[in-house]
């Protein structure tokens, strides 16, 4: 499984749901994007620890951009 977590939709970062060092389980929201008038979570693809969050609230991300990295 890849370490990089990528946005699956273009949108604006609405909320950072996890910070570096946090343990996350597969399916947990790491960040929440706002797109199509909806809050859309970007989920951890596997269990692990968050190494790095690469975006900040309010930032626009494109589909495929890396938003966070797991250990």
């Amino acid at each position, binding site marked *: 499984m890849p370490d990089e977590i990528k946005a699956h*939709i273009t949108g604006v970062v609405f909320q950072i749901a996890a910070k570096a060092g946090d343990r996350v389980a597969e399916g947990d929201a790491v960040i929440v994007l706002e797109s199509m008038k909806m809050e859309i979570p970007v989920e951890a693809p596997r269990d692990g620890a968050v190494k790095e969050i690469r975006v900040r609230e309010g930032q626009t991300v494109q589909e495929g951009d890396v938003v966070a990295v797991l250990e």
Partner: protein
Amino acid sequence: MGMKDLVDELAARRTRARRMGGEEAIARQHAAGKLTVRERLDLLFDAGTFTEIGVQATHAGIAPDLAGRETPADGVVTGFGRIGGRPASVIAYDFTVMAGSMGRTAEVKCNRAREIAYTKRFPMIWLIDSAGARIQEAIGSKSFAGSGLLFREESIMSGVVPQVAAMMGPGAAGTAYIPALADFVPMVKGTSNMALGGPPLVKAVVGEDITAEELGGSKIHCEISGCGDLEVEDDRACIRAIKDYLSYFPSNNTERPPVVPCDDPADRRDEALLTLVPDSPRRAYDVTKVVRAVIDHGALFELKPGWAKNVVVGLARLGGAPVGIVANQPMVLGGALDVDSADKAARFIMLCDAFGLPLVFFQDVPGFMVGSKVERAGIIRHGAKMLYAVSEATVPKLTVVLRKAYGAGYFVMCGRGYEPDLIVAWPTAEISVMGPEGGTNIVFRREIAAADNPHEERARRVDEFRKLINPYMAAGAALIDDVIDPRETRGVLIRGLDMARTKTLQRPWKKHGVMPV
């Protein structure tokens, strides 16, 4: 020889043919986690109803390396029987005989099995476990130039009889078009795969090294390509899925879908419906929970559940009568429609319309996706398929607006302009050309910019906009039939279906339309 000897010889021939590819090949089939073709057919048909045709067939005797050998049933078992009491015809490839390759005699048998289903008008089922064409017999234009008619026949009979192609092993090359043209394609995990060109051909032609599983396994087709309808654990689950699927369909397009007795009360009110949809219109929830709370016994037979998950399509019953469900899924992409979900929904609507299954739409859609990516993928063309399919459909159509019904999303999900026989809304519904935020930014752009506090002004305008799109506006103009308590949904739909049962719509004559494929 007297009759007794002749009969004994017949029995011996039958026994030989039914041994399939022999003990070793059968052991290999089992070791691969697969049932044999005859075990599969025992599970598929009601006990004692299967009649085999062509069991004495063997290869065409034109390939030198087959001289002196028999190919039992020529590698494919064909015949007819009853499934759930109703007739069906089958073509089941036998991988233990020359890898289930399609020989010339086998093709004659398959033509016969299709003829049975197509002229008697009942379902045609393929169990595919085949290496593809038997090259030794297909080589040379004298053989090939006349072949391929099966795909024409399958196309012509599409929408006349249900057609199911179960992938229970490989389906290489041309064989992959059988499932492509079928209505329902379950795929067994780990053992099935399909591709227009198998790995050796891919390596030779484009130089790519890839396994059959990576190229066309069940995960690829049920999650990425959309060519498969359902991933199933093993052969038994696959046969169960075929039987479940067929139970929702009539034998052909002139009959009505089979109604079963229903002990789930028509007026059942599920209290969970009050809390399943979040108060915030921006929050996601799982729409299948809403659907399951409404349909008979919560039993939803989802098609393509792993692909284009922003729309949910599936078969269900309401008051015992089969229906097709189309629901937006806010859990994925916020429920926005995109290229694949439009394809998925359009195809499902056509399937239900072809066989007389009423359609029930559950709307919660923020619209179609926008942006350069989807435009380049042809979202206009793909979205139009959904418009086209829902417009064409003359079966009873019922619409429940759960929450958002924005823009063209409202149209394709059977808004008022698309002939719903009943359209109702929950109190949370917002029927609007666009969402309040987007709408406010466009309509009141100047006012917001000129305000002392643009942020407050925008919030105030959004609130005003929201008042214009609550369901009582549409209901007040009699453009929706009612606003309902979510707990009433099941009863309303069952009564609506009962009312719409005699629906008759005559479209103008045409050869056929020009579908925006």
